[in-house]
């Protein structure tokens, strides 16, 4: 091992000392920054990952919509089935209705789903917590969990539904009667917005209350696991008429995904400053070391050590602190991620805020997803910043005049 690397190691971990204070504190500073970055970016990644999963599971991988209505859904579905990568399709109709139960009104988005095909594209059955999807028919409705709580409806109760079509009839002085629907089930996706604003009915019922006839608003498409959603959407657009347009889930939600990515990047940028601050403390400690070891630096010159090797000795110390801090920080961060839900539970119990997380943060459990690219970026940033922290002390050490260094008091 070159002498300057050997000496850097020895200065960080001196012979016979169990607790090299400067080294431990410096490594801890970098480790805390890395751990915080790993936890924050992974949780942000988890939120993004969950949101992406939810979007795909509730909308399908690709969605076809018309400028108005799709009047011939069966024909379009037959065309879609020919496109490579398309596994299944399901038509849907959607709109806003007024829902009332026990004099408590709500204005949910109603989704009309094809009971025959929806299961092939959207795993609805997985999210039905009470009742059953099998009990859904043209006289019943499935409510989202928080909406059911808000209007006080349970499985078996009857809710009244007022559609925009009923309002049109009212304007024409026709009899205005709401539709009484039995609650066939309650679903919970785990996403606050979906769990408080969506209700499901059969496609036939939705077409009836909106007066759509046989038309639908769109078709959700499931693609093969290895297929690219954007690529399949482009392939579909090549065969569909101009009145119809297929868009991937990423394109449909591009603004939202952009905001998610922007938030993640901002958090990365801001939290990187923790590493920068700890790097400054490493710089400061190494500068003090250069002053404290001035005569030793003079001695190294007297022994034949080159200035650039003296500089490398201090630079390598910064690198080693960065490497140690990064490894320790990764361990600390992933350990914190492993126990994140226990920690959140303990914290919410301590602050009596168990329900707040689900109510305001949209997820009942703290999600986490550590993208390899994010982890690599954190590792590289941490090591590079720490190594740069050693540059200034290294430059000072290399610039020392050996004679003045040997004479220094």
């Amino acid at each position: 091992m070159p002498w300057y690397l050997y000496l850097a190691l020895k200065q960080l971990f001196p012979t016979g000392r169990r607790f090299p204070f400067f080294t431990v504190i410096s490594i801890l500073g970098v480790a805390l920054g890395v751990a915080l970055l790993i936890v924050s970016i992974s949780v942000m990644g988890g939120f993004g990952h969950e949101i992406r999963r939810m979007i795909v599971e509730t909308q399908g991988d690709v969605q076809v919509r018309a400028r108005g209505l799709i009047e011939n859904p069966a024909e379009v579905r037959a065309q879609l089935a020919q496109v490579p990568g398309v596994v299944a399709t399901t038509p849907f109709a959607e709109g806003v209705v007024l829902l009332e139960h026990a004099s408590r009104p709500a204005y949910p988005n109603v989704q009309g789903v094809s009971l025959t095909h929806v299961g092939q594209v959207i795993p609805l059955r997985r999210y039905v917590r009470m009742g059953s999807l099998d009990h859904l028919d043209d006289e019943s409705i499935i409510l989202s969990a928080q909406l059911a709580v808000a209007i006080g409806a349970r499985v078996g109760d009857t809710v009244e539904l007022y559609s925009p079509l009923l309002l049109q009839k009212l304007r024409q002085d026709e009899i205005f009667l709401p539709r009484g629907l039995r609650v066939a089930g309650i679903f919970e996706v785990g996403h606050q917005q979906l769990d408080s604003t969506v209700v499901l009915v059969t496609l036939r019922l939705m077409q009836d209350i909106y007066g759509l006839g046989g038309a639908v608003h769109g078709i959700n498409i499931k693609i093969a696991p290895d297929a690219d959603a954007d690529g399949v959407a482009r392939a579909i657009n090549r065969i569909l008429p101009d009145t119809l347009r297929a868009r991937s889930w990423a394109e449909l939600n591009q603004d939202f995904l952009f905001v998610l990515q922007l938030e993640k990047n901002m958090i990365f940028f801001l939290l990187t400053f923790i590493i920068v601050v700890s790097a400054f403390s490493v710089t400061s400690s190494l500068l003090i070391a250069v002053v404290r070891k001035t005569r030793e630096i003079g001695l190294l010159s007297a022994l034949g050590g080159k200035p650039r090797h003296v500089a490398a000795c201090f630079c390598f110390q910064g690198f080693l602190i960065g490497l140690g801090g990064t490894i320790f920080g990764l361990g600390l961060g992933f350990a914190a991620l492993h126990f994140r839900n226990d920690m959140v539970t303990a914290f919410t119990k301590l602050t009596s805020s168990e329900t707040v997380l689900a109510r305001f943060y949209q997820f009942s459990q703290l999600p986490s997803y550590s993208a390899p690219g994010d982890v690599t970026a954190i590792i590289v940033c941490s090591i590079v910043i720490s190594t740069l922290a050693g540059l200034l002390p290294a430059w000072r050490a290399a610039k020392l005049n050996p004679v003045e260094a040997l004479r220094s008091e």
Partner: protein
Amino acid sequence: MAEPARSSDSLNVERSALNVERSAGGGPILQARGLAKSYLSGDRRIEVLRGTDLDVAAGESVSIRGESGSGKSTLLHLLAGLDAPDAGTLAWAGAPIVAADATERRATYLGMVFQSFYLIPELDALQNVLMASRILGRPGPADRARARELLGRVGLAGRVTHLPAQLSGGERQRVALARALMNSPPLILADEPTGNLDERTGDTVIELLLSLCRETGTALVLVTHNAAHAAKTHRGLFLHDGVLR
């Protein structure tokens, strides 16, 4: 304090071979001609050395005495190539030396001993001695054996794993002597090596330094205030008014 071991056969054999090689050239091992050095002190220029000449032959020991501030250490730094003279030339074994290029050659050609020992506090005695060979990029098993042997020669065989903080002043200086000899240099420059030691320990260290140099045929330039120590060298010089006499 442990009494230094008196001899080491393997060291002697190695040094004898080295002496033959060194004597073959016949010229001085160190040659300084007209060395001049001055410093600015405020607006005033102080001329520390004014054309100093010095020749040191292989295996020769030379002492340099002088008043405090007379420029002894400055001269030693110039001889070591650590500093550049304002005027004059320096040659090691006949090869001209420029301070900027001296670093690499210094590792093999010179051993230096200082008043303040300058041991690296994070390294134990053995590692400090080995540092001299590490700088040459060769801390192999043979070097380790040699470092242990040198530490044994200076009476510290039982203290090789002790840190400088666990050694007395005299012991530290003996570690520094072993380090100076580690790379078998033909010349040792010692700058008041007993300055921080009591009289008795200082005497022991000087005896040891001179006997090691004698045994190994290493030339020595010893800067000292002590007339008795100076008297033990082959040649005594006095630095006065910037000139060696």
